[in-house]
């Protein structure tokens, strides 16, 4: 079932909310004039929704900038990177890069959670929920609110590292 417009919009909102429950230790403080950068790897209907959101909203009281990325290297200055299903082949590479750089990785593709994406949006019934890869979050330098751990369905962990 192709994702509806409403669903893409909701997913964009999820990114906004994820950002509010995450801390980037080396980033500029909340309210800073430096933009909050969201990178998008690959084609996804969520991208235009994110761009729309960036136009009318601030995240962590900072201006929002959405960058469409084509290379893994381009992730460098991003706070959040959305990984589309197209990047399934090079996912491990992306996850490894992100781990080094305080990047919150987000996706909406089944199985990405287990493969090291920190937050993977999933559908449960008629509602959207998300998976959280505890191991990936723990290995990164990001600090995620405990509320995310409570709400998200834990995936990965030992099994993920066992691969």
């Amino acid at each position: 079932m192709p994702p509806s417009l409403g669903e893409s919009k909701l997913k964009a909102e999820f990114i906004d909310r994820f950002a509010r429950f995450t801390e980037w230790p080396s980033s500029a403080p909340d309210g800073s004039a430096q933009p909050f950068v969201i990178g998008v790897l690959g084609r996804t209907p969520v991208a235009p929704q994110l761009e729309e959101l960036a136009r009318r909203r601030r995240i962590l009281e900072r201006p929002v900038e959405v960058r469409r990325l084509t290379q893994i290297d381009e992730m460098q200055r991003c706070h959040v990177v959305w990984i589309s299903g197209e990047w399934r082949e090079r996912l491990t590479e992306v996850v490894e890069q992100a781990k080094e750089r305080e990047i919150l990785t987000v996706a909406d593709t089944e199985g990405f959670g287990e493969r090291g994406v920190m937050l993977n949006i999933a559908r449960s019934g008629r509602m959207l929920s998300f998976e959280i890869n505890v191991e990936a979050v723990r290995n990164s330098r990001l600090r995620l609110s405990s509320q995310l751990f409570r709400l998200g369905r834990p995936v990965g962990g030992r099994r993920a590292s066992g691969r």
Partner: protein
Amino acid sequence: MRRFRSLSVRTKLVAIALAGTLVPLSTAIAFVATNDIRSFRGELERSAALMAEVASEYSAAELAFNNPEESRRTLAKLEHLPEFEYAALYDLSGALFAGHRLAALAPAVVIPPRIEARPVAEVAVFEHHLLAFHPVEHRRARFGTLVLRTTTEPLEARVRTYLWAVLAAALGAVALSVGLAAALQRVIAQPLGNLTEAARSIASGGDYSVRAGRVSEDEIGMLAEAFNTMVAEVDRRQHEAQEAVRVRDDFLSVASHELRTPLTALKLRLQMLSAKLGRGGAEIEAEQVRQNIEVTLRHLQRLEKLVAGLLDVTRITAGKLELERTELDLSALAKEVAARFEDEAAKAGSSLRFEAAASVIGCWDAFRLDQVITNLLSNALKYGAGRPVNLRVEATGETARLTVVDRGIGIPSGQLSRIFERFERVAPARRYGGLGLGLYISQQIVAAHGGVIRAESHEGTGATFVVELPRAARSPEACGPGAPEAAEEAPPSGGGR
């Protein structure tokens, strides 16, 4: 207040003790109870606010990620609060997002589907419940509002129990204080009762020997003592009054006798004269008539003296003894009086010796001092038993002193203090005539001059009377020759002396 006054002391004491307990007790209880109830309520409000805050903290992500199921699970954890009725989460538009309610405890309570947006945390108090509102925020982003409703009925029950306990304690304290007061009032009421009993028995029986027992050292003890003193004083005055009546009766009998003796003599003498004259007057010689008239005059003089003495006493008693001061030589006056007594001294067989300074000048009433010297000499000769009598006048600085010494029967030492009293006489009236007024009048005259008179004597060895007079009047200018003393004197009345 009038009703309170008419109560017995016992009841008053109990009432005072009761008031003394009730007023501070009720004030303290009202204060403590108000504080406690306020603190119970505050505690409940604080705990509701705290729970709302904690729950809202947990609910942020649920609202953020639109997870009402998880939210309900969170809210359900609050149901273990003892006063819990419901907890609900509302989104930013005020629409119900998730709620949990304990239907069993509060079946009538429903979770409202919408609420007005509330910007800050607050606790609203209603009659039987509280509503705690808390904004759901995370990192300065607002997601909605949490509402927690708790019942205040357990609190009310607790307050009721508390108030009953307080009331019971207060009643206990009051009962205790009334009991104690009832037991202790005897300490005050009983001695008062004894005192009343003593007063009553004196009033009805007239027995002044009754005394109230003094049982304590406090005001009631002092009252008992004052009462006893008063009874003793009344007793003493009663005796005094009786004694005064007796003295007056004695005096009256002496006075009537004294007045009657010369009158009888006079009557006899005149009857005899009249009888002789009635028979033609031939048998009576002029010489005899003259003798009779002389004797008659003597009796009249004696009567006059007695009456003058009585008049003086009346005047002194009325406070109307007036002095007519002039510059006077006491030596000369004393000498003159002594000369007047030469015949009488000779008759009594006493020698009258007079010694005096050349002149002792002072500002005195000549007539009154004449009376004093006359009286003292007359007494000295009367009681002198025929032995020598000395009259001495001397001046010592500001004072003139006149001394009369006899060596006669003297005065018993126990009576010395009484001889200057009115109507008092020490010697037996039958043998020594007189009204017993002389020394009283003398003493009053000397006192009016600002002087003193005193007597020294032993029974059987004679008596010494000393008069001391200040030489100057209190206002010296008043003592010109013949000038009356303005401060003390009215103009001479013309008669009476």
